[in-house]
């Protein structure tokens, strides 16, 4: 007898795209590459992605290219989609032609040689098209293994009404952030400066902004310094202080309690990626007008540093069946007309031209009380600290974060001890996977 097995799974709504009325627009191709023929020949490609704005991109692409069918399938988000992709790569069957892969997961597929090198199709012409952070994420050695779809420069989202109500200044440094956390919670015990139940992505972004390199990757040699690294220590100190003083709400991100807290002001700030506005508008509509965006708190007064949080690319599996047509599609979606379509849908760009365009910068966000929030995001994008690398097994690392560092959020251990435990887990795993661990 089969039974229900409760298991959390982060997936997103199916994006079955209805057939599009074949409005034959004059097809204008972007650049003369050898993949253009594939467009004229037509055919079908399968795209595994969860990003909601792609639906319209697919519809437009099909309308512009009669004879081309794009099968957009949502096989789950994050870990689930990578499990599906890894299974398909291992099995060698059922591979998609295009897969949405977040920047943190790219190195692990690149290292296996599972992704197509796009320089063959002329992707190197796009160097300079994208912000340096996303571009360095899609380059692996001299290969280009995907085209950046969006980016997530960090910013501090804060509830202005709550700060005003208690007469507290919006923090510009992490020291001030800590003090604001105390003041807010003292003013109203229901209010927390932020929530965190042990989010690996946030921890990485904070360490990154603090100038940390908690791990170094050189091909198959991986070195760890989670205990001694300055960035990791800074993260541990601030977060441990907040945990010790009970200033962090233990609510897990993306839960209904989380959206409730964002709506009613009990979660007062979020250090998070620039893609967040669309989620706030869609999922916490009651917070409209209350929220604003500020630059990330700095580690040293007067500095301007930032980091990335999230962001994903479209990549082509090396064994995909229709790689030429797949390339035409990702070129359209991430460098061509699809970019504007996605921006209109609320996505955050990775393309320099859009990040710097007057139209983009002057956009007023109703949700943020008319603030031109993109200016903050754009400055953040330019201030991303260079030199950050993701582990070649970051997907695994993030899944076991909760078992070590996450325990500190439950009070079982400290963040410093948790980081040490995380490091030893990762060293063991790295060795098992055949990496040289230093």
């Amino acid at each position: 007898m089969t039974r229900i097995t409760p298991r959390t799974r982060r997936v997103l709504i199916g994006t079955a795209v209805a057939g599009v009325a074949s409005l034959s627009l004059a097809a204008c191709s972007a650049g003369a590459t050898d993949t253009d023929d594939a467009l004229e020949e037509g055919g079908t490609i399968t795209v595994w992605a969860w990003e909601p704005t792609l639906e319209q991109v697919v519809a437009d692409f099909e309308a512009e290219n009669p004879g081309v069918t794009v099968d957009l399938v949502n096989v789950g988000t994050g870990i689930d989609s990578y499990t599906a992709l890894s299974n398909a790569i291992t099995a060698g069957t059922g591979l998609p032609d295009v897969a949405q892969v977040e920047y943190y997961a790219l190195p692990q597929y690149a290292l296996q040689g599972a992704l197509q090198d796009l320089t063959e199709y002329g992707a190197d012409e796009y160097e300079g098209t994208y912000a340096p952070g996303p571009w360095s994420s899609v380059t692996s050695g001299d290969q280009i293994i995907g085209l950046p779809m969006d980016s997530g420069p960090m910013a501090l989202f804060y509830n202005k009404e709550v700060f005003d109500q208690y007469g507290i200044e919006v923090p510009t440094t992490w020291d001030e952030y800590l003090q604001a956390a105390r003041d807010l919670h003292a003013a109203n015990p229901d209010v927390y400066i932020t929530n965190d139940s042990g989010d690996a992505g946030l921890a990485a972004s904070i360490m990154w902004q603090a100038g940390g390199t908690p791990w170094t990757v050189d091909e198959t040699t991986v070195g760890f310094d989670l205990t001694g690294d300055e960035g990791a220590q800074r993260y541990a100190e601030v977060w441990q202080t907040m945990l010790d003083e009970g200033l962090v709400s233990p609510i897990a991100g993306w839960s209904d309690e989380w959206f409730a807290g964002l709506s009613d002001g009990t979660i007062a700030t979020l250090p998070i990626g620039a893609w967040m506005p669309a989620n706030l508008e869609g999922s916490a509509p009651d917070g409209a007008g209350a929220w604003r965006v500020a630059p990330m708190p700095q580690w040293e007064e007067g500095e301007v540093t930032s980091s990335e949080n999230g962001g994903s690319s479209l990549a082509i599996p090396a064994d995909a069946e229709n790689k030429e047509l797949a390339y035409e599609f990702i070129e359209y979606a991430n460098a061509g007309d699809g970019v504007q379509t996605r921006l209109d849908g609320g996505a955050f760009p990775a393309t320099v031209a859009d990040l710097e365009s007057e139209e983009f910068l002057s956009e007023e966000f109703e949700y943020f009380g008319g603030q031109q929030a993109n200016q903050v995001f754009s400055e953040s994008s330019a201030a991303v600290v260079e030199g950050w690398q993701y582990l070649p097994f970051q997907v695994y690392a993030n899944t076991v974060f909760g078992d070590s560092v996450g325990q500190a959020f439950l009070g079982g251990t400290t963040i410093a001890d948790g980081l040490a435990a995380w490091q030893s887990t990762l060293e063991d795993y790295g060795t098992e996977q055949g990496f040289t661990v230093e």
Partner: protein
Amino acid sequence: MTTTRLLTVAPSVTRRRRLGTTDRPRRSVTLTVLTAIVLVYSLIPLIWLFINASKTQSDLFSTFGLWFGDEFALFDNIARALTYDDGIFLRWFGNTLLYVVVGAGGATLLAVLGGYALAKYEFAGKRAVFAVVIGAVAVPGTALAVPTFLMFSSMGLTNTPWSVIIPSLISPFGLYLMWTFASEAVPTELMEAARIDGAGEFRIFWQVALRLLAPGMVTVLLFTMVATWNNYFLPLIMLRDPDWYPLIIGLNQWNAQAATAGGTAIFDLVLTGSLLTIVPLIIAFLFLQRYWQSGLAAGSVKE
């Protein structure tokens, strides 16, 4: 007269009668409290679900969980759940029905055929079959899901409805239940009488035995139906295409939609969808419950 009759009935009945509440009511505070706790424990999630399915998303975030919000939006929510994303909910509903009708129905049919044969016919290896069936009851379906996935993957069956239906067809517990039930409910004498009248074995099965087996069949049907309706892990690993999702996977996908960049939280629709999802099961139970009761009793009491 009544007293004498009472004395002649089975001892268990008289004992129950003596302890019964009508003659000498015996109240136990502990029992009452325990029962109340169990009742509340089982009803609160249902009540919570109903109350919260009637709220708008903003009421969901801002009002008390166990009472109604400012607006009674149940019907609006139902309409939106049914039409969201081109009515994908109805598609999932249809898929679930397909898996239940073909999977659970097929499992019941196979269990009835197999259970009857095992109960009423002698053949070599029957003890071995018995051992296998009992062993199979002990193996949770979840443990078999991954091996089944690998096998189906090499057969090219994954991501098709077959990958959910075929494993659902097997119900060792149903087979065992039908086996026990058939050996009690179908008197061998009746079969022999039919044989003497010249009926073949198939005719005996279809025209004589099947009627007697009906209560047991309903019981097995209910078990397999609930199992298939609630089956999560199997479709989760087998299916990649949302068009083939059953409700339970689809609802989970709606729930997870909140957790991605650019995704919109639709917790209100998830709740309404969950409410709609349990309605058919409740209806099935109300209709089939009496058979379930008599079905279970029929196998246990010697007539």
